[in-house]
């Protein structure tokens, strides 16, 4: 049992850290400046501890751990899990820092936000580690319930409540689809763990033809549920409203950690359950479905993003577009021996730091009662507050894929994997879409540096917060590091890829 505890250390560190924060929040004395600022630091430390523990287990090699196999198949401790644990802790830690500045500034200074964030991350880590339909569902719900509450955190605001209800209803619906698919799979194979299900499908399901039809239905249901969680078109309708209504640190968490965990789940399900050659072929399996989703997701979201008036909403559509790029990498996984999985993992890491940085910079641009959300709010910011404007521009350039930032190499590796797997049309569309995306990222900079605010219009005044600045600096350093030395992290991503077949 001691060995199993060591193998699960990343999850346990974060979970017990969350319990500690919860007790501090309830029993701690309120100091000047409110509880949020103390708890933000506390949760950041918890997340960094989780990230350090995961990274050291990664470096030590989880196959060396005697307890790593005792938790399988419910929780699989391998390099893939530990890579995602690190990324998730990083994304959530950045959100915690943002919340430390954002919540007091916008009079949302309630400490409950931080335990919610921590426990939701525990769910995300369980999700990334799950090798069984049951633990997958528990992880998914633990993660989602925390996020529903965080989205509705601004209780006085109608928009925030609407976003929370919408996200809750559609999220539960997606979970139900996933559950239904899982129930059908269990009905067909009699197993709940991915490896046994995959083996049963590979062995031809005992030759019963009728069950193959049922399996197809199950696959469609599971894919729909997964597509909902990564917010892929046409399952994206909730995303802009939920992202816009939520407090910005929660938006960042949803765009970064929830999406990464959902992609981890997607890779585990697609390769573990539907990893046989029939399911992974263009004629009879999931590749054409995912390729269509990727195509729709990239194109539709980029076209809509260019027409947004709100920067936050534009970033929501941009996060949908990025999900589309990642899906190209996921489709490329069907080519055996390629680095497609590594490109997906690297992309998620670079996307995490770029997006979290962009949201942190957007938080910095606004202040109490005047959250800078629309393009007009940002007009002339480059002259009035060059630092905030520069930070936002920097992360948007990374999202656009400008070298030498992290975003460039993310797109580069995905495109390389796409060409390597023979997905020429998808890869060309990815590059075309990156050009379209550059339009709306650059538009923010046009407003900040080349427009003057309309006379008499209330303009955004940037806030001052050490926490938000720390989040920006941390993400900026990582964006530059990933952009200048991408090979190290790519090697880490290659070593983290799931083995299958």
């Amino acid at each position, binding site marked *: 049992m001691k060995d199993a505890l060591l193998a699960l250390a990343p999850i346990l560190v974060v979970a017990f850290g969350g319990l500690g924060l919860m007790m501090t929040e309830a029993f701690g004395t309120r100091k000047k400046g409110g509880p949020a600022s103390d708890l933000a630091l506390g949760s950041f430390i918890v997340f960094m501890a989780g990230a350090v523990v995961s990274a050291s287990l990664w470096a030590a090699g989880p196959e060396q751990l005697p307890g790593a196999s005792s938790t399988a198949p419910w929780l699989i401790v391998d390099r893939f899990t530990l890579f995602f644990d690190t990324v998730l802790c990083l994304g959530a830690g950045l959100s915690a820092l943002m919340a430390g500045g954002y919540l007091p500034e916008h009079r949302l200074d309630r400490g409950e936000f931080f335990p919610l964030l921590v426990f939701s991350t525990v769910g995300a880590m369980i999700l990334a580690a799950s090798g069984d339909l049951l633990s997958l569902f528990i992880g998914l719900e633990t993660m989602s319930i925390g996020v529903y509450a965080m989205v509705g955190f601004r209780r006085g605001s109608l928009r925030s409540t609407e976003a929370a209800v919408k996200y809750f209803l559609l999220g539960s619906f997606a979970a139900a689809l996933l559950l239904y698919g899982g129930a059908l799979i269990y009905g067909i194979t009699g197993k709940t763990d991915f490896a046994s299900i995959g083996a*049963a499908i590979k062995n031809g399901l005992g030759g019963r033809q009728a069950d193959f039809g049922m399996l197809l239905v199950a696959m469609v249901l599971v894919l729909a549920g997964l597509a909902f969680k990564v917010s892929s078109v046409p399952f994206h309708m909730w995303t802009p409203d939920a992202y816009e209504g939520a407090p910005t640190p929660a938006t960042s968490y949803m765009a970064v950690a929830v999406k990464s965990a959902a992609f981890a789940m997607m890779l585990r399900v697609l390769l573990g359950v539907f990893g046989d050659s029939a399911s992974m072929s263009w004629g009879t399996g999931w590749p054409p479905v995912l390729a269509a989703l990727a195509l729709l997701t990239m194109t539709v979201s980029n076209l809509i993003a260019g027409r947004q008036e709100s920067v936050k909403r534009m970033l929501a559509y941009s996060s949908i577009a990025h999900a589309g790029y990642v899906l190209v990498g996921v489709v490329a996984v069907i080519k055996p021996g390629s680095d497609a999985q590594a490109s997906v993992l690297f992309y998620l890491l670079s996307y995490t730091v770029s997006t979290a940085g962009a949201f942190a910079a957007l938080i910095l641009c606004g202040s109490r009662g005047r959250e800078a959300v629309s393009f007009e709010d940002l007009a002339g910011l480059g002259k009035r507050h060059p630092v905030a404007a520069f930070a936002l521009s920097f992360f948007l350039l990374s999202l656009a894929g400008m070298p030498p930032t992290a975003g460039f190499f993310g797109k580069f590796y995905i495109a390389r994997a796409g060409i390597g797997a023979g997905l020429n049309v998808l890869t060309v569309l990815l590059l075309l879409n990156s050009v379209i995306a550059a339009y709306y990222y650059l538009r923010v900079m046009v407003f900040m540096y080349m427009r003057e605010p309309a006379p008499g219009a209330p303009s955004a005044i940037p806030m001052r917060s050490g926490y938000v600045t720390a989040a920006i600096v941390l993400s900026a350093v990582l964006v530059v590091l990933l952009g200048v030395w991408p090979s190290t992290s790519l090697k880490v991503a290659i070593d983290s890829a799931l083995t299958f077949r």
Partner: protein
Amino acid sequence: MKPLPSMASYVPVMLLFILAALVAGGMFTATTYLGPKNPNPTKEYPFECGHLGEGSGDVRPSVKFYMTALLFVVFDIEAVMIYPWAVEFRSLGWSGFATMGSFILVVFVLLAYVWKKGALEWEK
């Protein structure tokens, strides 16, 4: 390896559902078309246990019961976990004791939290 049961073995269950729907639906349809209807004001009046309705139907009931219900579910699930553990107590040994101890500790932290937060107060 034993062959897995086919989905075909669930067909009787589905037939049962269909039969139930047909019987219930048939009864409703039959009474709608066959039963005599002589409505009068007394019959139309909503009543409960023979009493006439009083006051407006548009009142807001207190929903503070939801918190109690929520906490009940949380602490009830705890019992679900403990019963099977108690049955297997001897074979699980000290490691089982430690596992359940840490579980109960977590639940205790939760209890302390809801107590401190005032969720156990009925009237505030």
